[in-house]
């Protein structure tokens, strides 16, 4: 097992280097000139020669005149030292800029995942147990609707209904501006602001996980060991939760682990609609502003998380299912 883990980690390191090279090259092949973008706004405000001088300074500062390989080497060297460079838009270190959106995204996603799992797993199990009942059919219809409707439509409808018409929740934001209160009150103020986005994120994610749990549970309920358990006269609750659910959990758990790894991923639509400063918007803004250092850093971060996530998921298969362990 240890050998397998070390091998996977070695592949991981090689993969990271290859991907960092490809990503860096791809970003630098995008037509455009970040130095031009940086100084464009002052073009009509300063004399032409000053503008030209500042443009050249910006090119020099951003290292745009060096060969691409030299720039990659410098960039990778800095990355390994934990220096992700300066944002060309904010003129601040990327490492500092990324903290606030990352914190927000993790905070929101942890609640969204816990709420979704807390609702989806019991409903999925009940749907499987009561397969084709009125309850099951109703849930199926709603999950399909929730799954199919674009998030921004759900968001707009919810904002109109719950924030504008009923006034139950704020339209956007994470806190009340100029809020004065204790830490506990500030936490509840934050949760009050996040209630509507969390509700929408939950609706959007319930469909998939309910259907997945339901399918896994239906498969498990049709297994011979469940029939044997029932034939033994065990209580239905014991049959469902001790025999069927434990086995249904095997495929579900990998999905859940994968899902937890998405706590770092921002939701662009939700962040935009509710004006939340999270990773999705942060990344898209960096792309549209051609703020390469931010965009590449975020991209590489997601790549590392995804690669590590795959290793963890593969290992978790072995942990929950002894049949697929590498060594016994």
């Amino acid at each position, binding site marked *: 097992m240890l050998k397998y883990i070390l091998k996977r980690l070695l592949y991981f390191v090689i993969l990271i280097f290859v991907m960092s090279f490809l990503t860096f090259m791809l970003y630098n092949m995008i037509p455009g000139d970040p130095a031009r973008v940086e100084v464009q706004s002052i073009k009509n405000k300063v004399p032409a020669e*000053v503008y*030209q001088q500042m443009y050249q300074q910006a090119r020099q500062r951003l290292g745009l005149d060096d060969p691409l390989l030299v720039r990659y080497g410098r960039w990778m060297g800095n990355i390994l030292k934990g220096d992700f460079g300066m944002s060309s838009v904010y003129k601040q270190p990327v490492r500092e800029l990324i903290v606030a959106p990352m914190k927000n995204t993790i905070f929101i996603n942890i609640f969204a995942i816990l709420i979704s799992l807390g609702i989806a797993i019991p409903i999925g199990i009940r749907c499987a147990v009561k397969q084709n009942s009125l309850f099951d059919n109703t849930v199926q219809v709603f999950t399909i609707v929730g799954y199919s409707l674009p998030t921004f439509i759900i968001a707009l409808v919810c904002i109109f209904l719950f924030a504008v018409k009923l006034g139950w929740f704020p339209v956007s934001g994470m806190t009340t501006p100029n809020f004065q209160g204790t830490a506990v009150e500030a936490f509840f103020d934050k949760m009050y602001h996040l209630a509507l986005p969390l509700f929408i994120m939950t609706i959007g994610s319930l469909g998939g996980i309910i259907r997945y749990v339901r399918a896994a549970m239906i498969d498990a309920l049709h297994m011979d060991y469940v029939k044997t358990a029932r034939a033994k006269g065990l209580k239905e609750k014991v049959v469902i939760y001790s025999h069927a659910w434990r086995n249904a959990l095997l495929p579900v758990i990998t999905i859940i682990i994968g899902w937890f790894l998405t706590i770092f991923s921002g939701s662009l639509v939700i962040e935009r609609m509710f004006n939340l*400063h999270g990773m999705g918007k942060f990344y898209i803004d960096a792309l549209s502003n051609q703020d390469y250092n931010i965009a590449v850093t975020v991209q590489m971060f997601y790549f590392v998380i995804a690669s590590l996530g795959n290793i963890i998921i593969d290992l978790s298969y072995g942990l929950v299912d002894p049949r697929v362990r590498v060594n016994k």
Partner: protein
Amino acid sequence: MVKKLVSVLLIACIVTTAFAACGKKAGKDPSGQLIIGSTTEIGGDFVPFFQNGAADYDIYKMIEGNETVEITNAGEFVVNKTAVKEYKTEVNADGSKTYTYTINKGLVFNDGSEIKAVDYVTTAMLWSSKVVGDMGADNSLVGKYFKGWADFAQGKSKVFTGVRLLDDYTFSVTIDAQYIPYFYELGLTQLGPTKLNFWLDDQVTIKDDGEGCYFSDNFTKEAYEAKINAARGAIPRVSSGPYNLKEFDESTKTAILEANPNYKGNHDGQKAQIKTLIYKKVVTETQMDELRTGSVDLLNGLSSGNEINAGLDLVDAGGFSYTAYDRAGYGKLQLIADFGPTQFIEVRHAIAYLLDRNDFAKAFTGGFGSVVNGPYGVAMWMYKESKDDLDEKLNQYPYSLEKAIEVLENGGWIYDKDGNPYKEGIRYKKLDDGTLMPLILEWASSEQNPVSELLVVKLQNNPDVAAAGMQINQTVMTFTELLNYLYRDGSQDPKYAVPTYNMFNLATNFPVMYDQSSQYTIDPVLFETGANDNWIKDEELAKLASEMVLTDPTDRNGFKDKFVKFIERWNYLLPDVPLYSNIYHDFYNDKLKNYNINALFDLPYALLYAYVEE
């Protein structure tokens, strides 16, 4: 007699009430709170030297004050008598001009420390220094017009010769001879105070031995980069404007400002009347809902027809008001005048005749826009004062296929592809070398641009364009690639250096300092850099643009006359086809009073005169 007496008493009552109200307002302590919704993100860097975010800049203007020169609501520069005790000017032997300012005693920063001349000098010195330039800051913003700036900013000279510290309350700045005379020269001397030990520390000093100011030798990038970067986001921060920055929440992008009790007032003696200002990020899709539900109190600078109509509905429902004002700028179709068909004035005229600009402006702005016929904004004082004259002199290029065909034929576009007299299809012109040039225009437009989409409908696919014998080919690209083509920047790729596109759809805004001399320069060196990005070489236009700003600052009428001549020439040459000039709308809660904004006297200035009535 009784009627007269009643009338007099009534008028007396109204006048007394009005004065009482004014006096009460002026003398009152600041009160209330106003939440400003901004669709532009607040970056949290409240100095404009490292980035150019509009929201951050608004906040910068609210927290900084006591400048030597300020802007009036008519968009003109005036000496700020609240900060300046007296000033004098002197033209030097080398043609440069020195402005010597003596500031009033008793001005204080928000931390209570007294403002002295060295604090004004600090602004010019710190923000022009090579140290901040090497940190990525734009070190040309403050001192670029002062004598010796280039050498000081590039580290070639330790001394900034154009900045002098004369005594505790007196300093001078010298405008370099190359910028004199300059109509806006007063604006060039606009300086506010900066607390040196807030940005650096007490170890760094500024001295003047008679040749100009200089920093002590310990001021280096290595020693002070971290300190300066920390100060950029530091709260509390030492400033001297009408508001203090109380808080900035990075995670919610919200800034809170509170009235500065130490502020003595602007050039009118006006102090902040609203106690707390909150600057909050909003999104376009829900900003009107935020206003409706009270999450924000003011939305600034709305320009889309849908947004404005939604706002007007809100105003009709009651509880809200709005202020509409013209943009100092316009959206345009920029034509390239040194190659291809658009090098010929007749083709540029024909394009204008083939686009119904009134219809375009109405469609794009939803009816909240106008059409201009030259490079001006209708909010500018010189336009306002010469409007009748310009209306009479300028060609409005009304939509007309016949007129377009006529000008093309007059311009020699009378052949078909075989050199025979034109009958149908694309027109050709016989060049001096005998070759035929087709009337095909290559148009570069940026992606996801609603103006481009409307231009496709109203111009490119307009059947009259084909009927006139013209063809327009659109190429969509990123904005940065578009700029490379526009400036012919071969450093990125040799293909950009080759003139490829005849027209670009862009937009422009005019600042208070209306200076078009670089834009239409024919100086060979500047021309090559792409400063004149219409690539138009017209001696008269270049001369008129230069002469306008080289007017003596006291010769207001002279400037206005030159402005009219410049606009007239421009209107004839037509390097751009102006498409639309927006009418901006600000919507706000009825509690906001006396809010009089315009394109040049924008949000930070207008809010200083406004107050809230809870």
